[in-house]
């Protein structure tokens, strides 16, 4: 479904990604991990065109996202994204956050958008909070709203960039529970996360990155039991300690 072909990316003269290749099939859950600054965020943002790249190619459903007839807004509405710092719209209520893009991008009418939104809020356990503003919610609740907001666009793929790393420990599980459910329903997911319990539970594959390169791509069970590369062993050791 998504294919990165030896993609390289530079920020000015700093090379953030070196020759990265990954393939993610429909319904697969792929975890990206690695030390800070290794390029995980940069890589995942390439997929929906929030960042651009200088060489290589990215195919979405077999078609280059750089080809002339691919419009970025059109691509992005098919690909949901969840951010580390939630990025809810503070001037809109929870319901407003979930309906604005449905109405303005998908041109759904207000009643339909609201119906859809309330259904999704039910699903993440926040129906009672529909009228509140983001600042009135806890971090875990905000992140669940953010996931519901992405789902309101009926995405074909979901991108997660460290969705739980800005959360207090007791709130991490409520967010992971929603993500596990999504994975089990067959959503295609690319997740940057260091939640290894979550990875073990749902991941089909793990991609380990370091200094802008993909060092190791492997079957989830194999990666955790016996990482092939020295750097991955190091990293896992630090993570478990």
């Amino acid at each position, binding site marked *: 479904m998504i294919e990165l072909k030896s993609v390289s990316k530079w920020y000015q003269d700093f090379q953030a990604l070196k020759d990265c290749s990954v393939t993610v099939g429909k319904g697969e859950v792929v975890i990206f991990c690695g030390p800070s600054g290794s390029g995980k965020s940069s890589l995942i*943002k390439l997929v929906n065109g929030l960042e651009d790249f200088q060489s290589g190619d990215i195919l979405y459903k077999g078609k280059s996202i750089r080809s002339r007839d691919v419009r970025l807004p059109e691509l992005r509405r098919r690909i949901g994204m969840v951010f580390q710092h939630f990025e809810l719209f503070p001037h809109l209520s929870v319901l407003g956050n979930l309906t604005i893009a449905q109405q*303005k991008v998908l041109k759904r009418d207000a009643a339909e958008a609201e119906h859809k939104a309330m259904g999704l809020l039910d699903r993440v356990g926040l129906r009672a909070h529909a009228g509140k503003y983001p600042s009135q919610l806890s971090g875990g609740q905000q992140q669940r709203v953010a996931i519901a907001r992405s789902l309101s666009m009926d995405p074909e793929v979901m991108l997660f960039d460290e969705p739980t790393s800005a959360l207090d420990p007791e709130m991490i599980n409520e967010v992971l529970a929603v993500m596990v459910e999504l994975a089990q329903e067959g959503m295609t997911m690319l997740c940057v996360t260091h939640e290894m319990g979550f990875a073990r539970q749902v991941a089909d594959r793990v991609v380990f990155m370091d200094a802008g390169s993909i060092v190791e791509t492997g079957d989830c069970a194999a990666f955790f039991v016996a990482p092939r590369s020295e750097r991955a062993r190091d990293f896992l050791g630090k993570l478990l300690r």
Partner: protein
Amino acid sequence: MGYNWNWGVLLQPVATGEGATYIGWILHGLMLTAALTFSAWLLALLVGTCFGILRAWPSRLCDAIGATYVSLFRNVPLIVQFFIWFFVVPEVLPTAIGDWIKSITPSTQVFVVSVLALGFFTGARICEQVRAGIAALPDGQTQAAHALGLTLPQAFLLVRAVPLVMLLLWFFLIVPQILRTVFGLSPSVDIRLVSAMVAFVLLESAFFAEIIRAGILGLSKGQFHAAAALGMGRYQAMRYIILPQAFRAMLPIMMTQCIVIFQDTSLVYVISLGDFFRNTVSIGERDGTLVPMLLLAGAVYWVICSGLSGLVRALQKRTAT
């Protein structure tokens, strides 16, 4: 155009004799403007910083003294303050000092008065910045530096008072010519009001542009990304996500700017547009009651502007939550 431009006059000697040319006179004025701006800026920084520290001092009395200063000097237009320093202050000081001031050569007198007026006026604004800077200290060094860094734009605020007068005069002279040519108006139609409007709109829109730009840049990159990730185009993201937030954050500053404009309107004095201030002064001149009339004008501006400031503060409190 119907106006008889006579630039040659610049090179002619001044009518009063003394061998100077008009251009020399203008350049001399420019030097004076620069000296005035710089002296007043220094004074404003000094006074503003002192009162700003006073306002942030943990003492009710100090805070009240600082607040009174800010309220008085911020809520009375600059030109009214000029007049008060010039005509009223020497009268109310002890006779000896008053007489001594009047004995100084008039040009020095005017210069000192201008520096005082500009200095205290701008100082009131700087005071608030300093206070904000101090108040922000516990919240982190960056914020404090940022808030203190804001004292630099105050210098521009000061410089601005002079160009606005220039703008008004320019538009008073040029706009009528253009309008008359384009619309074939007769010379008897009074377009001073239009001239004034054009000058103000041009000047203030430049300010608002900067304010809004700052408001947009102040939003985190994440909000742009979040809007884009939902499939919104540039226009949609701006219209539904970015601008509503930027405007909300900027509303207090925009309203404050509005108060500034209200005060600056008194500068239309220079093009003889009969606004509130000019008419008050005319009455004072006619009846020989300039001192009470000037005090009245100052009081009226103060009441209106501090009322509006109170509104802004209330609004700020509401949007802060």
